[in-house]
């Protein structure tokens, strides 16, 4: 929790409400901000994030769109180029693939193609991740894929402060920012200081300090990783948990500093192993901290299978605490 608030001024809230508070703050602060997406208005958002905002801000600023991901993402890009600060909500990352042309071919390239004359200060929020038995077209974790693209910034807020505070920083950024909200976090409760403010979007955060091994993770996997770290503590292993928060740009300095201290690293990533952000981080550690390592870098990723529907298979496909512990112990041998 942020040190800006005291226990007295902290409010019991959910990740969903914190995300909504972030959007509401932005709408109140900046008349250029508006929210646009499928069912963000009358329905209240497919995950309930924007509930009540239509009533407060009206249909000009809370815009229900048709099922046209490419269309309304492109409109967000054009509006951003012409003085507005749109927040585009896409229901899930799987649907964002319908807008890949706009995100990758337009949003990410326009500043460069125009020699710096035009920028796209657009924020696109979307849900990501598995765990709700939504099967293979609503559960994937493709944020690492987007992190491949120069011109984009990719955020994965895992805490109440981050989901509220990163949005404001993202809206102030002159370039397109993608925010991935893990579906299992929406119902997470916690205390959020009433004065919680902007959060940087280029800095990783140490969520637990340790000296024996660095567990690197982000988004929905943070809590499984913290649980694994607690279990390791019972074995007298002090694990440091590094929450990346931002997948592009990666906070190389924080990663290298932690790994150089602990000399061991395991990366926990809900994306598939092949070509993953975990692979990228592992390579950077190899390039920049190889001589500090006492063991090969370990990885815990999703099994290379589209996410299955049955609970037992879905759970088996995803990074879980026992696998994180096993990878950590292997690294500690």
């Amino acid at each position, binding site marked *: 929790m942020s040190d800006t608030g005291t226990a007295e001024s902290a409010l019991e809230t959910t990740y969903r409400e914190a995300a909504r508070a972030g959007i509401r703050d932005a709408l109140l602060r900046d008349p250029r901000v*508006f929210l646009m997406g499928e069912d963000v208005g009358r329905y209240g958002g497919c995950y309930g994030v924007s509930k009540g905002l239509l009533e407060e801000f009206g249909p*000009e600023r809370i*815009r229900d*769109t*048709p099922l*046209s991901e*490419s*269309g*309304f*993402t*492109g*409109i*967000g*890009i*054009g*509006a*951003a*180029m*012409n*003085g*507005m600060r*749109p927040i585009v909500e896409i229901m899930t990352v799987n649907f964002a693939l319908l807008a890949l*042309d*706009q995100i990758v*071919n*337009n949003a990410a390239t*326009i*500043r*460069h*193609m*125009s*020699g*710096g*004359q*035009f*920028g796209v200060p657009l924020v696109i929020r979307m849900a990501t991740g598995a765990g709700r038995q939504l099967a293979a077209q609503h559960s994937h974790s493709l944020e690492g894929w987007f992190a491949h693209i*120069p*011109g984009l*910034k990719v955020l994965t807020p895992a805490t109440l402060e981050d989901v509220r505070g990163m949005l404001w920083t993202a809206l102030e*950024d*002159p*370039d397109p920012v993608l925010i991935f909200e893990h579906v299992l976090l929406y119902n997470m409760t916690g205390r959020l200081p009433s004065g919680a403010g902007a959060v940087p979007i280029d800095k990783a955060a140490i969520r637990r300090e340790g000296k024996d091994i660095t567990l690197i993770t982000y988004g929905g996997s943070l809590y499984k990783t913290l649980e694994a770290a607690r279990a390791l503590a019972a074995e007298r292993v002090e694990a440091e948990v590094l929450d990346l928060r931002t997948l592009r740009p990666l906070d190389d300095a924080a990663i290298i500093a932690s790994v150089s201290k602990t000399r061991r690293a395991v990366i926990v990533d809900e994306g598939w192993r092949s070509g993953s952000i975990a692979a990228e981080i592992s390579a950077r550690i190899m390039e920049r901290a190889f001589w500090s390592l006492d063991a090969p870098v370990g990885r815990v990723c999703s099994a290379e299978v589209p996410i299955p529907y049955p609970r037992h298979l879905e759970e088996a496909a995803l990074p879980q605490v026992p696998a994180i512990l096993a990878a950590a112990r292997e690294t500690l041998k």
Partner: protein
Amino acid sequence: MTVASSPKLRLSRETLLKLLREMIRIRRFEEKCAELYQVEKIRGFLHLAIGEEAICTGVMPALGPQDAIVATYREHGHALARGVPMPAVMAEMYGKHSGCALGRGGSMHLFSARERFYGGYAIVGGSLPLAAGLALADKMQGKKNVTACFFGEGAAAEGEFHEAMNLAALWKLPVLFVCENNLYAMGTRLDLSESETDIHKKAESYRVRSEVVDGMDVIAVEAAAMRAIAAIRESNEPYFLECRTYRFRAHSMFDPQLYRTRVEVEEWKKRDPIPRLVEWMTSANMLHQSDVDAIERAVAAEIDAAVASAEAAPWEPVEELTRHVYAEPQR
């Protein structure tokens, strides 16, 4: 010439001369680009719009300086007609640092903020939602600007065309959609790719006001653009012009044109917008050969100067390779 519906006042000799000069300027510029391509001064893809000049030439005068333009990868004429200086366009063709996009874009991606030229886009259909977004921003900010969005008929086969048409109509966005229907999407003839070949009917099905224009007749295009812009400013709703035209040259410099006959090309060349306007003005006693000669001389001099300036311009230092990916701190 379709002059009956044109506002008569605008048909002054000066106006017509200006249109003629602009079409010749664009034609000769592109012919020079083809030459420069042969000698490998211009590389990559080069898509010429020779034969289609009447459309951008006719539409641009209907727009004001605060209106925005979105174009495609076949946009040299659009940039020139909008007023992007020729040396900056030519330098961009060369990839030089003095180009209108610092050389980073090239032929397919001309940009110029000063003229509100929001760029040439090379993913067919992808620029239509973007144009609708520019218009939405103008509307939300209470500005009366129009966004003119140029694209080929091939875009009508893309989902983004339909998404943009629906949203522009639904949200009443001030967009002038200008479809340059040259009958071929690269090498695929319209009737081989569309069940409905009247493209404007697709716009109408979204309740976007639309009309068909002879895209080989610059006066007809200008008159239609004036009507359309007036209607958009009045209603704050989109408008669709389907301009029927023809590309005389290959799709790009790599195209042997196996998909159409020489006879068909020759048939369309009889409707070449430049000789058409010359003949019409001459028969109306508004033009003499000496006028045409003077235009040609001035254009040739402008092109020579643009080429010389592009030749002399420096290359961007390789050390700057990774610039313009993200915003830079003010220097």
